[in-house]
């Protein structure tokens, strides 16, 4: 759990100082280094972007913006609020999974399918 929180912190810091692309890169590096299941990177991604939204943005403004932003994509406001954490989840998980499997294959192993 601590490791997931630590990774979430790294992803949040990477996003803050770098940008969205820090998520797949940091998740990939973490995956190549630690070789933990990729879903943990996904959870860390969700936590990091969820925290960036929830902790750095005043709640009233968030709720005012959500339906307006959601309307652009034809989504309800609450769905729009879920999109950044979901995006970070998929981005971190997919990058971690691909890199972990590539590393394993390059060392003669195989993926174990646990995600």
């Amino acid at each position: 759990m601590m490791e997931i929180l630590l990774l979430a912190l790294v992803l949040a810091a990477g996003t803050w100082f770098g940008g969205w692309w820090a998520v797949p890169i940091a998740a990939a590096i973490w995956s190549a280094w630690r070789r933990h299941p990729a879903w943990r990177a996904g959870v860390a991604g969700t936590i990091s972007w969820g925290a960036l939204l929830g902790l750095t943005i005043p709640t009233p403004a968030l709720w005012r913006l959500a339906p307006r932003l959601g309307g652009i994509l034809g989504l309800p406001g609450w769905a729009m609020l879920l999109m950044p954490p979901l995006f970070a989840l998929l981005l971190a998980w997919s990058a971690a999974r691909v890199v972990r499997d590539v590393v394993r294959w390059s060392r003669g192993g195989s993926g174990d399918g646990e995600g």
Partner: protein
Amino acid sequence: MRLAHAGTALALAVLIALVGLSLRPPAPLPPLGPLLDPVTGAWSVARHAELPRRASAVIPGLTHPVDVRYDDRGVPHIFAVTEPDAVRALGYVVARDRLFQLELQARAGAGRLTEIAGRAALRLDRGMRGLGLPDAARRRLAALPERERRLLDAFTDGVNAWIDNLGRNRPFEYALLGRVPERWAPVNSLHLLGRMGWTLAHSDLEDLHAAVAQAVGARAADALYPIESPVQEPLQPNGERAPRFNHRPLPPPSGALAVRRAEDAAVAQTDSGSIENDAIGSNNWAVAAARSASGHALLAGDQHLELTLPAIWYEVHLVVADSLDVYGVTIPGAPGVLIGFNRDVAWTFTNTEADVMDQYAEVVDNVQSPARYRVDGAWRDLRMETERFLGPRGQLLAVDTIRYTHRGPLRRAADGWRSVRWTVLEAGGDLGAFGRAARATSAAAWLDSMAGYRAPAQNMLVADRRGTIAIRSSGRFPIRPGGRGDLVQRGETSTGDWTGDWSLAELPQASNPAQGYLASANQQPIDPRVNPRYLGANWYSPWRAIRINQLLRADSAATPDAMRRFQTDPGSPAADIFAPAFLAAAARFAQDDTVRRAAALLAQWDRRYTRDNTRAVLYEAALGQLQKLLWDELDGVEPAPGLAVTATLLADSNSVWWDDHRTPQVVEDRDRLLARALALALGQTLRLHGEPDAGGWRWDRIRYANIYHLLRIPSLSALRVPVQGGQSTLNPSSGRGDFGPSWRMVVELGPELRAWGVYPGGQSGNPASSRYLDRLPHWRDGELDTLRFPRAAAELTRYQTSTLQLLPDAAPR
């Protein structure tokens, strides 16, 4: 093993898809990653949605610190030591609240929207550049007096200081478009003014007259789109106590009409006609001290412009010690207050609607690619300017050559080349006039300051604390040697060129009239019996002016609250004429069940456009049908003749114009056509809105305001806002609902000036801000906010919500 491969393939597919959508999304999707990024993406605007309680910033060029206090309505009160510093601060605070609007409007004026919107905006951009507006702005900047240039530079300093401080906190729209703000340039302010000129003073009377003359002959065209409004209620009082209706018989249509009509017999008659021309406009009026309850002069104004989010206006209070203390609204990009008040004087505008744009048919050396044009037997070289249109990624979309004669830009027309002469392209000195007017201490001094104002022409209404009220149609009104400006002139000879301008004394104007009030509402400003010189044609019908005068005449002890109520008054003088006419006509055809039922329903209408009214819809439909049936001879030319022309035609019950040529077996007279229009209207209304008392006929379900975001994104807009009023009322609503009162203001000029105002939307352009739409309920309900007008920053403490310290770059932060 197989599962593992499938999982890896799925992850790879997701990764590629997400990265691809983030780097190069298919149009029109924005880049997904940058959009959803909670630090710099669309969400980030919520982080800065509200102004911090305290903030400071450095503005290069500032000579002294500037104290900015925001009140409880989000209005910045700027306290500066010098005027350029106040304007620097203005640029900063406007950019802080409205940066995207600033850039978008400047781009629109410069004909550079393609750089944001791509090819979709090419037609619009070509229109602006083809008219020579960006070229005029550049030339105007080069010729700007030193003082005005200094102010534009100061405004630029302020805007760019905000842009430089932005960091990653781009306004919402930039995140959506994947762009970064462009640095502001002084010429942008002039692009903006040019764009306002295009909105307010662009006309194509020549094209309209030509199209109508082709359909029904020149004499009829003159009568249907007349130089003299058939109903006279001028802003310069003409000594008459009531509007004057000039009932002149309309000359019959001529030409090939009868032949063409037979082919049109099958045209459907169920669509409502166009009545847009009477659905928009602006109002202003003032009441002299003798006719107000308090014994102080009162002034009210509401400019009807395109309704947008954020609003076209931005409210601000500028204070420069011992020299300037002005409150009002500015258009983001203008370096000062345009409409408002100071300690002694209040002012507001309506559009004059004068014809200040003429077309000349030119003889050129080469029709395909002209290089010269002929005047008085001699060839002259055309000035050529190359205009390049770029796309969002800087790619070249198109290159146009804009040609200019000595009159103005040369444009291709169906029958050759026409040059355009337009006062908006030759304007200058207007910024300085606003600056001087803001310091005036009397109505007379204010008008003197505006003496040099040129374009777009405005009916400028002013009142002062001494009780003076005055109005003047201000601007440059050209004198045509041929006497008219609604016909295409011959360019081959200089005898058609303007020979001068109306002198100041000739302009429509009045000061402290005996009647004790003044009003303008885009009507013909001066009675042709007083001054017959050509000023324009196809004037707005004067229903709003008539209504204002009715209300003011009836109220000898006016109050600010009465002025407020008048601004959304639901009465319509047009309905007072047309509704009885429909009913009288229907009585003649009472044997027809549909006509009888329609008349019974219309008779229940109180002729008021209140929100819960359930009969106005039938009248509106009947009027639309009438216009469509009546002007069938015009073959769909838009706009149809104004309702004032139709109203005067009511006196001529057997005019040939009443005959609907699509029914060759019947010759209609006035009453038959009115009754048919009413019957058709009932069918249309039942079809569209159901039975009369089932709820669908409520006026607020038919007409509402649609206030679109600048990018026309529905979820960022305020749509279907129910408002009181209809066409020809003081609160007119157009069919699309996207025009309406853009700034309502009432001022009482007592010992201590008091003022109230509202515009639709809010001060902030940030859709996450509580100030994005906070004024909408008051605007919708016809309420006004009290405007805070402190003499010193300390007086504002009670209402203060945020402070901003702006510092010279040498001072410590």
